């Protein structure tokens, strides 16, 4: 029974050679991505693969393939792209974006996909953690008294331990990072 269940996982990233069923597609997905800031030019992609050839992540992690991800978006494979959060592997290094002959803002497309996945609750654990820190302290590595003592010793000025006003700028993120998303939608880690 276990194995049967495993093979029928509907949202699994599509395997090499697997046939794309029309019923799996969401024809509105390309429009949805193009409507996100940075996603606008995605339809210009003619699948040359320059992005993938120069991608430093692709070299070490075959699940991250920018050309394939863009193709999946244009085909409308919404679930496969957003529910398996491999888009978070993008290092935002801009190598692809700088080289794209069609001017597709690939790093920005990946950012748009990450933002859409986050809205669905699919993201690596680190994201709610970072949001929590920024909401409470305004920085990812809050300083304490001890840190400031070390700074003084090193001849550096002391800095504020928290920037409480920053939290008000995070209100669009709703409950993200408040620990409420944990039980219902456990954050997935990319395979």
């Amino acid at each position, binding site marked *: 029974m276990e194995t049967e269940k495993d093979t029928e996982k509907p949202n699994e990233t599509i395997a090499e050679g697997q046939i794309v069923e029309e019923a799996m597609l969401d024809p509105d997905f390309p429009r949805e991505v193009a409507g996100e800031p*940075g996603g606008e030019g995605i339809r210009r992609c003619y699948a040359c693969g320059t992005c993938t050839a120069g991608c430093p992540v692709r070299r070490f992690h075959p699940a991250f393939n920018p050309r394939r991800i863009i193709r999946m978006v244009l085909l409308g494979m919404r679930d496969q792209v957003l529910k398996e959060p491999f888009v978070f592997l993008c*290092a935002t*290094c801009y190598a692809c974006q700088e080289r794209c002959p069609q001017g597709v803002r690939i790093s920005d497309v990946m950012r748009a996909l990450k933002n859409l996945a986050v809205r669905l609750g699919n993201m*690596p654990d680190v*994201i709610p953690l970072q*949001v929590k820190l920024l909401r409470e302290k305004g920085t990812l590595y809050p*300083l304490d008294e001890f840190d400031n003592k070390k700074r003084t010793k090193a001849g550096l*000025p002391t800095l*504020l331990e928290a920037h409480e006003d920053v939290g008000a700028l995070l209100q669009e993120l709703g409950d993200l990072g408040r620990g409420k998303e944990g039980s219902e939608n456990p954050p997935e880690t990319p395979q």
Partner: protein
Amino acid sequence: MDTAYALFLGCTIPGRVRNYEQSSRAVADRLGIKLVDLEEFACCGFPLNAADHQVAESLAARNLSLAEEAGLPICTLCSSCTSALTEVSRHLAEDAHEREEVNTRLSRIQRGYKGPVKVRHFARILWEEVGLDAIRKACTRSLEGLRLAAHYGCHYLKPSEVYEGFDPVEDPRTLDELIRVTGATPVDYMSKKQCCGGSVLGADERTALEMARDKLAELKEMEVDALVVVCPFCGVMYDANQKSIEKMFEETFGLPVLYLPQVLGLAMGMDEKTLGLKSHVIKTQPVLEKLRGEGSS
């Protein structure tokens, strides 16, 4: 040339990478650049781009508005802070509608922003505004004999559209020239432009460390004395995480990682303490020993 800048440290530097901060302040001081601390500077917004681009933009704009209020351009040390703040500064200068939206969000914390605010990485200030001649004049000791590999990373140069092409993305040279001015030899190598993997760390640690390992492995073959970086994130990947990489892949590298201002500071005759050279995970002692043996003449 602007002679005073608001120093933007970001999240990583103040608690974790003080050596970069110490050496940058010392070198700026020697070259007559005044770095002003604005204590309200917080996260640049870059890490939030994955969660919500608009919120990330609000955080960047908050910092830009602080610099605007102080009437100062921004000097950054972290490459990711540089790209986040530069992109937003440029975007808001071009898009009045977005600027209005950002101001609506900033009004929640009683702030406003007109812009644009100039944002520059410290290395770019050294290259463009101070210039090699002035730096050469400030050097009192040759680093001849040291073989140093420049690591440009990603956001020091990219996205190039926001950086006025000050250094060509596919064939960068600013860091190599800033190394050469000290008398040291900048080494050319295959993986020079490669990403450190730092921003993959949260999604997949192994992939991130594999990316960093690739460069360390090449440099080991090339017998360089140190890798030279201009971003705390890259520094953490190659220095602080080097031992984890060695353990994970069962190899040894022992490659010292220096921040560019530490290299310049050494050439300006500054001591180890001023430059924070003792607070590295991978000991910088071999570099200093080599300098004492063959360097200053």
